[in-house]
């Protein structure tokens, strides 16, 4: 009898919890995340037929072509750099392997606009690379410029290949060795093994990495605007800043949203079709000891990659920061920018991780069409360009809660919405380890909903939450366009200062800020890498 009552109470309370926590909280977060999208749909609804027509005929064909070519080229670039590095590092043991892993991840600390800025200044006639070029090819030769599709591809590939590297390496270090051994036994040479066995096994990870790269390319603002390459994002920004109405910008944004969503759905479709299952007994692959020749070849290639993707930019930052230090330009004002940047990044990371949790848990438990829909809608931040997100939030705040306008909270809201997808993704993949029986066991042992969350659920997905925090922290630290529009008066962050100084060609003022972004990200990155190696062990 008493047991039955207890059971009844349990199911009822669990039902109540379902209403408040799962069915209530998750949609609330999704609505919050959808604010910019609602703005875009509303504003583009204001666009007249004539407006659409002129967009369609005059702007779209060129923008579509430019954006798609760039995405394909950047994907190819990141594929070559990321996969080659990941394959060698996880399959061969060579001197300095640990260092090489770091070198492949470090470019993540440099934002795209800093890459673009550094390389344009290096390639000027009196820049380091410009001088080198003249030394090799003669004083009359023309140094190549970055103001074209190849230049932008170069910059975005260097800035993005680390995502592919990280994901593919993660996949390679757990993939089963049997497949490769069997292929070997059947007489395939090592290239054939790579091409016909290892590569297909890596496909899901490569797809996920390239998807990340393409989404970054579609919404990149910094590099394309520094290099004046007309993509959707730059054109949207120019529409916003050229005219006093935002309708055309909203129209273009809507097209971009469709483009990105199509891409996301395609990517998911192909990834779902490629699932590989191994036997239960998986052995981690012990990398083979590299021969001396292999070591030289590997280091030549990895060295080349990291010279361009990290060492050269770092040297540039150090040299100009030194100049700034000598000139006494690093004052308390500079440390104020550092403080602002750290503050917003810590606050945004913490808030985003908390807000993302309900949606991630909801999807992990339900796996329904509705939860999938929530997931898609809350990835708006990844699909819309930063300036548009900022504008949507601005319009929302001024129309609905004008009291908070101008305050720090608006900027925080923007960062949260922009980087929510990162947090949800990381948390959701961690939450997949949660089998319903674990949570049910907790409840049947008499834990309240809150106790269950605190003592069962959270500890299990702790790692995922930590990675989510780190990812959001890094991206907020580098965020430029939304911060530019929404920062409280006089609240300059490091990216904002880099942008201002760079547009005035004050190299010695831009460099210390860029350097500090790298330094500020390092401990966080170290933490992320440690988590990854722990997992792989």
């Amino acid at each position: 009898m008493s047991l039955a009552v207890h059971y009844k109470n349990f199911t009822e309370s669990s039902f109540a919890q379902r209403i408040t926590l799962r069915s209530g909280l998750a949609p609330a977060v999704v609505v919050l995340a959808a604010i910019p999208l609602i703005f875009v749909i509303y504003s583009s609804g204001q666009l007249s037929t004539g407006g659409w027509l002129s967009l369609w005929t005059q702007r779209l064909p060129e923008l579509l072509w430019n954006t798609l070519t760039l995405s394909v080229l950047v994907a190819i670039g990141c594929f070559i750099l990321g996969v080659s590095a990941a394959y060698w590092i996880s399959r061969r043991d060579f001197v300095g392997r640990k260092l090489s892993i770091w070198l492949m991840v470090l470019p993540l600390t440099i934002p795209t606009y800093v890459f673009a800025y550094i390389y344009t200044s290096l390639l000027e006639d009196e820049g380091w690379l410009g001088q080198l070029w003249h030394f090799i090819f003669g004083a009359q030769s023309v140094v190549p410029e970055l103001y074209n599709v190849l230049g932008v591809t170069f910059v975005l590939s260097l800035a993005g290949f680390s995502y592919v590297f990280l994901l593919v390496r993660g996949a390679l270090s757990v993939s089963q060795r049997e497949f490769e051994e069997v292929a070997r036994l059947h007489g395939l040479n090592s290239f054939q093994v790579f091409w016909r066995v290892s590569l297909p096994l890596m496909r899901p990870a490569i797809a996920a990495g390239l998807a990340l790269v393409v989404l970054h390319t579609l919404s990149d603002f910094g590099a394309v605007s520094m290099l004046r390459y007309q993509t959707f994002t730059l054109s949207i920004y120019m529409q916003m800043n050229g005219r006093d109405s935002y309708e055309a910008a909203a129209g273009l944004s809507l097209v971009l949203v469709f483009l990105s969503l199509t891409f996301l759905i395609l990517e998911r479709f192909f990834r779902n079709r490629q699932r590989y299952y191994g036997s239960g007994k998986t052995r981690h692959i012990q990398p083979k000891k590299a021969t001396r020749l292999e070591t030289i070849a590997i280091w030549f290639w990895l060295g080349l990659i990291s010279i361009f993707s990290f060492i050269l930019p770092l040297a540039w930052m150090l040299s100009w920061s030194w100049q700034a230090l000598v000139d006494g330009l690093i004052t308390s004002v500079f440390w104020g920018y550092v403080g602002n940047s750290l503050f917003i990044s810590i606050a945004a990371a913490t808030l985003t991780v908390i807000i993302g949790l309900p949606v991630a848990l909801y999807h992990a438990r339900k796996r329904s069409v509705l939860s999938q829909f929530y997931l898609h809608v809350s990835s708006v931040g990844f699909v819309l360009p930063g300036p548009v997100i900022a504008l949507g939030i601005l319009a929302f705040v001024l129309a609905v809660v004008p009291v908070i306008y101008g305050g720090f909270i608006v900027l925080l809201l923007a960062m949260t919405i922009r980087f929510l997808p990162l947090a949800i993704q990381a948390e959701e993949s961690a939450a997949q380890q949660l089998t319903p029986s674990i949570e049910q066991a907790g409840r049947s042992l008499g834990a309240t909903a809150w106790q269950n969350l605190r003592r069962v659920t959270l500890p299990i997905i702790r790692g995922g939450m930590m990675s989510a925090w780190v990812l959001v922290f890094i991206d907020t630290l580098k965020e430029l366009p939304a911060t530019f529009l929404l920062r409280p008066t006089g609240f300059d962050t490091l990216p904002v200062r880099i942008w201002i100084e760079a547009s005035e060609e004050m190299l010695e003022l831009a460099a210390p800020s860029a350097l500090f972004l790298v330094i500020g990200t390092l401990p966080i990155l170290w933490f992320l890498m440690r988590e990854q190696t722990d997992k792989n062990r």
Partner: protein
Amino acid sequence: MSNITVLFSRLFKIFTVTILVASTVVYSGSVMSAGDSLVIYSGRSDKFVKPVVAAFTKASGIKVVIHTGSSTSLLNKLKLEKARTDADIFISNDAGNLQRGNTAGLFAPVTNKIAAAIKPQFRGKENNWLGLSARARVLVVNTKAKDTDFIQSVFDLADPRLEGKIAITHSSNESYIAGVTVYMLSAGKERTRAWLKGLKQNSKGRVYNKHRKIVKAVARGKKVVGLVNHYYIYRYLNKNPNAPIRILMPDQESEDGKPMGIAWNVAGAAITKHSKHKDLAMKFMAYVSSAEGQKIFAEVNREYPTRDDVPAASMLPPVGSFKVAPVSMYKLGEERNATIDLIESVGMP
């Protein structure tokens, strides 16, 4: 169990750090933007604005917070913010934005006494904005290049002989748009459209994001001729006195004897309508339009002062020695959208 303790001690740490940092920054932020300082939305480069602001603070003791951005986006921000704005002063690098702000009713007039110091053609109709420094849209020509004698007008940039030889900036540059407005109003829409098509052809889709780089490209012989604001040429010559470039004041002569004249533009400032420190803002406007303030603009950036009694830098062609297209500054704002439509219809990058 220990896992949970660790997790919570970590979460707690993060929480504490956040609170700590938050309170410090909020505190320092509240000190920084304390109620009694003057807030400027500045669409000009910091390096032009800071010297005059520093001089103003030194002379008046009034603290200033500068919020930097692009003129157009700051104007849009003002428009959205309405009465909630923090801004007391709006500084624009272009007359077009000042006039647009005026039309949208965002500004408050300065006193007649302050306005009287500035030449009438360089200020808004109801003294709602003041032009503080003027610039000429000119050509920079490489002196070593051959066959450049035919270049007399900006319209010559579309000449097929200059294919691949011209350097221009991108179409969202405010100076560029203002220049096209002047040409459009002086020479007509169709001629300007044809000209833009020629520019697109001759620049081969490659535009420069900085005027400084245009001058440099011409000086290095990569391009023959470029379209820039006059002071970029002198800034380059100041650093490289022997560079093979010269300034060419375009449209001073024509076959019909009625040349168009050069396009002229001003950078300026206005007091915002919703400023909470109108008295401080008025003091700032008085300072920047005084002889003392004007001299700083003339010296720092080699622009033309907008007061009669302050001379321009000595190397510049003096005002009056060249013909200026008779387009009023406020037209740059009124015709701005029409100009952008025209540029977009040609599809310039």
